[in-house]
């Protein structure tokens, strides 16, 4: 698969690049961002995947931390774009920009909206083949819908990711308005299919190896108050199943990138602990 470099900027001694390629899973051109720390010049580094909007690369201030810990940070797009599907641009929380990291089963979405496979299969393969990363050391984290994506990718693939963390994730989409809207659109009405992409449900049947989950949630986050995020459900499930989680409710913080920027260093250190162990 040919990679086309769109941009490259030096940052904290490393390089922040943006590439474009033709995605097989998504049948369209996809862009992704890659940050290569200085250490990548001389050896293979662990890979950390971030799921959220592309604004992450400029707004969240992760570069210094990534540079210090020597981590390659990969940020794919949130959904396929330019697929010309009817209705894809109607709302901001469904369709373009809101792929929900599922493999859609419903028309007209199922051809293009296969973000789950893209993120867990195609993209890592592409990255491993083209960049100095260690294929055995991979972690994932994200924000909001991306937080949901990170959690489900980790929970559905025990042992694939060394660690996972999230900012204000949608923890229980099956029960929140966003999730209901997205899942019914992408997956149809069979709720059993929905649970396969719901972190709270996945935890209940998680068999796998030890996961150490860090979650930061702004207390003043409007979506929390609106019941879109539902972290309590997730925590309760994790407590039940003894999945280690440290959930921090941060006083005064909201859903924005300012919140992410404040705690991104803690998250990167969390991942570095496992990726550099």
């Amino acid at each position, binding site marked *: 698969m040919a990679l086309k470099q769109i941009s490259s900027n030096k940052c904290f001694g490393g390089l922040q690049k943006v590439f474009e390629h033709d995605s097989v899973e998504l049948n369209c051109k996809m862009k992704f961002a890659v940050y290569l720390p200085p250490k990548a010049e001389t050896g293979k580094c662990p890979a950390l995947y971030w799921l959220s909007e592309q604004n992450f690369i400029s707004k969240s201030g992760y570069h210094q931390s990534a540079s210090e810990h020597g981590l390659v940070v990969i940020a794919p797009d949130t959904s396929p774009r330019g697929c010309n599907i009817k209705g894809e641009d109607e709302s901001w929380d469904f369709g373009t920009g809101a792929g929900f990291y599922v493999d859609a089963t419903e028309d007209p979405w199922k051809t293009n909206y296969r973000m789950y496979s893209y993120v867990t299969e195609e993209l890592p393969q592409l990255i491993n083949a083209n960049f100095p990363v260690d294929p055995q050391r991979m972690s994932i984290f994200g924000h909001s819908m991306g937080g949901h994506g990170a959690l489900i990718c980790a929970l559905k693939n025990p042992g694939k990711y060394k660690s996972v963390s999230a900012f204000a994730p949608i923890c229980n989409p099956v029960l929140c308005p966003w999730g209901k809207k997205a899942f019914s659109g992408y997956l149809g009405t069979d709720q059993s299919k929905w649970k396969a992409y719901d972190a709270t449900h996945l935890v209940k049947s998680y068999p796998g190896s030890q996961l150490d989950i860090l979650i930061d949630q702004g207390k003043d986050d409007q979506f929390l108050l609106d019941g879109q995020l539902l972290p309590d459900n997730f925590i309760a499930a*994790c*407590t039940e199943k003894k999945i*280690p989680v*440290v*959930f921090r*409710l941060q006083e005064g913080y909201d859903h924005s990138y300012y919140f992410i920027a404040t705690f991104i260093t803690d998250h990167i250190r969390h991942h*570095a*602990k496992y990726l550099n*162990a």
Partner: protein
Amino acid sequence: MEEESGEELGLDRSTPKDFHFYHMDLYDSEDRLHLFPEENTRMRKVVQAEMANESRGAGDGKAQRDLQEEVDELVHLYGLEDDHELGDEFVDENIPRTGVSEYPPYMMKRRDPAREQRDWRLSGEAAEAEDLGFGGWGSAGQCQDLREAYRYTHGRASEEYECYVIPEEEDEEEAADVFCVTCKTPIRAFQKVFDEHKEHEVIPLNEALESAKDEIHKNMYKLEKQIIEMENFANHLEEVFITVEENFGKQEQNFESHYNEILETLAQKYEEKIQALGEKKKEKLEALYGQLVSCGENLDTCKELMETIEEMCHEEKVDFIKDAVAMADRLGKFLKTKTDVEISAQPEFEDQTLDFSDVEQLMGSINTIPAPSAPVINPQVPNSATGSSVRVCWSLYSDDTVESYQLSYRPVQDSSPGTDQAAPSPPIIKTKEIRSCEEAVLICWESGNLNPVDSYTVELTQAESPEASGVTDSASLYRSVVGIPTCESVVQLQPGRSYIIYVRALNMGGPSVRSEPATVHTIGSYFRLNKDTCHPWLTISEDGLTAVRSERRTPARELSPSDTHFTRCVAVMGNLIPVRGHHYWEVEVDEHLDYRVGVAFADVRKQEDLGANCLSWCMRHTFASSRHKYEFLHNRTTPDIRITVPPKKIGILLDYEHSKLSFFNVDLSQHLYTFSCQLHEFVHPCFSLEKPGCLKVHNGISMPKHVTFY
């Protein structure tokens, strides 16, 4: 010849031997001809030195005057026809000092058309416009350097030399371009051909310039040095001056005190003598008086007897005989008693030789410098000795004049003969109270002696393996700390090692034998729970690592507040070694236990709960209704944190350097929370049990890797 000329001109300084005088012409060629007869072309006088000399003199006025004198001298010397010219020239030189005009120093304004023809005969003429009157040098640049040299030597303001600017006057004569080493003058190349310089060695002018410059610089450096020397000498003289005053003062004082001492002694002697005589007199008089009195008594008795006898004689015969017998007895007795008619006290007073020997001695010692008082050796400072050296400090009385000190020493053996005092008994290390971290250990011990000892010595050897014991004295000593005044010591160590510690006590009789050893491992931090701080409801185990709170049925009665032990919070503190750096320890707890673990300052209020004030930080776990609640308390505030898997072993990292206190779930290598805390003083670990149960402290654990990320 040059030196002679110098002397002739009145240079009476002693110049260093290698101070070369270079030929130099003061005047322009044309004028020179006026001044110098032809045959004197070779006799160039170095007037440069003089010029420099007088320049170094006082202000302008004086220089001018000197200049005038020099001028006169030169005139006389060179047989000038017209000393006016000369005078003008020198005067010219001075004018530029005011910065007005730009006359070249020694260049005449007048130009003689006949110049050219004389040019060749004179070596090194400053012919061209660029050349200054330092004819011998041949180029403005050289003169510039020389000027620099002068400036350098005596620090004149550069403005004064502004005058030395090249005038833009034409001059048909050409510059010299080679230097004749033999004659030490610059010449033009073709001149070499001529008889004067035919056989001579010639070098390019630049070289000559360089070497001349070097010479000048060398000489300048010497002059500089001399200046410094003289300044130093002046300072030194000042010091000596002051010292003379001081010494005089001392001598004065000394004599005065001596003198006074003598006077006092004499006065004292006088008093004593007089007093002694007086006493003697009194003695004698009393003795005599006594005798007188007894004599009188005797007399009275005699008289009385006489009278009685006379009366008796007039009595009747019968009465007379009775009385006579009695009287005869009395008389007989009386007369038997001896009458002392020896005078008890002689009127003469003995001659007493007065002992003035001490006064003599004083008089004699008045001229000697008193021997200084014995210096006082300072007590040995801990850590001031090594295995082969010791640092001795002493102080003396400021009044003493001391020329030198003599230090002597002798080694004192354990069983040194002739010591009165027995060496002390070895101390006893309080092994349970040893606290350590990766970089240091705090040891304390009991004296082991009833009598006070002078100091203690701590000896450490490295243990090859952690189980090594019974090391003999011949093992290599890693560290020895001497002169410890109290029964505790903090010793710095290397991380990750094991050490064996001994303590000795030391007194006049020597050092004691080594105490029983104690072992220290510099892995992680070691501390014990401090029973003194313990709340009465807590029991601390023998090894100081477990705290137990037993079931209590009795209602809690108010415990009176205490400064040392906790009264409200059922807590205990540990004794962490007061050393900054990293400390890591672990606490084993039960999942269902309500506890608080953290750190606090030593003076935290013991009547309050841990975390309720700003002097303590702790992690608090409460288990109620099957729910685990976790708080991280400081000053009564906590962040909102949920933890899904309750830790059974909590790792605590105290980082003084980064002012952080972190908590971990050890089994999961999971980071729980980090406080940022200002640790201006040392803190101690603290633990509290809010319900019956127990917690156990684990020590000596090296910081796990996951903790290092924090």
